[in-house]
């Protein structure tokens, strides 16, 4: 079960900040989330949303393990 984290407006949209979800890859995780919540699914694929796996930004699909931490990072506000 990957640990999934949402930040900023994505957290407000989904109504949760952290969950454990079974998925073998980032692509599968996106499908699982989109099937549950179509608005969230669309937002996760939105412009400027980055994905970090184990605190490193990744592009495209990446395999996940049971201990992976996946964070969806909407455009950053700065401090």
């Amino acid at each position, binding site marked *: 079960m990957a640990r999934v*984290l949402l*930040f*900023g*407006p994505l957290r407000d949209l989904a109504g949760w900040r952290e969950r454990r979800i079974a998925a073998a890859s980032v692509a599968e995780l996106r499908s699982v989330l989109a099937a549950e919540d179509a608005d969230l699914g669309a937002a996760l694929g939105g412009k400027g949303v980055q994905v970090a796996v184990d605190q490193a930004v990744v592009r495209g699909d990446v395999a996940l393990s049971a201990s992976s931490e996946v964070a969806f990072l*909407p455009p*950053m*506000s*700065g*401090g």
Partner: protein
Amino acid sequence: MSIRLTEAPFDPGALLTEFTKGRTETGAVATFTGIARAEAGATAILELEAYPGFTEAEIGRIADQARERFGLHDLAILHRVGRIAPGEPIVFVAAAAGHRRAAFEACDFLMDYLKSRAPFWKKEHGPDGERWIEPTAQDHADRERWG
């Protein structure tokens, strides 16, 4: 080099005292303190969210660039997260260098990065509700000055 996030209010004067202590070869320490604005009553509370670990690491990469680019002896960055009231310091940046120009410029460079690219998500709570804030065009233009 120190890069930290804190939920607690902080005293910039105390940070400066601590940062300057015991330096005998540093000719210049420049600091910047950012303070949360009330925006004439429009902002009651600023809420700042970070990704603990990731946020410090990303700021650290830029801090390393600043150290190299300006030949800094040391630098310190402290950033508030959580709920911040108008008038409270939100960010403190200090740069130590042999001479003043490098110290001034390093603070300027670091703040331009922090305001536009650092991994924070910022929400304004005001009388008309809440809204997420994105960097302004000016924030992006400020950062682009550095190439």
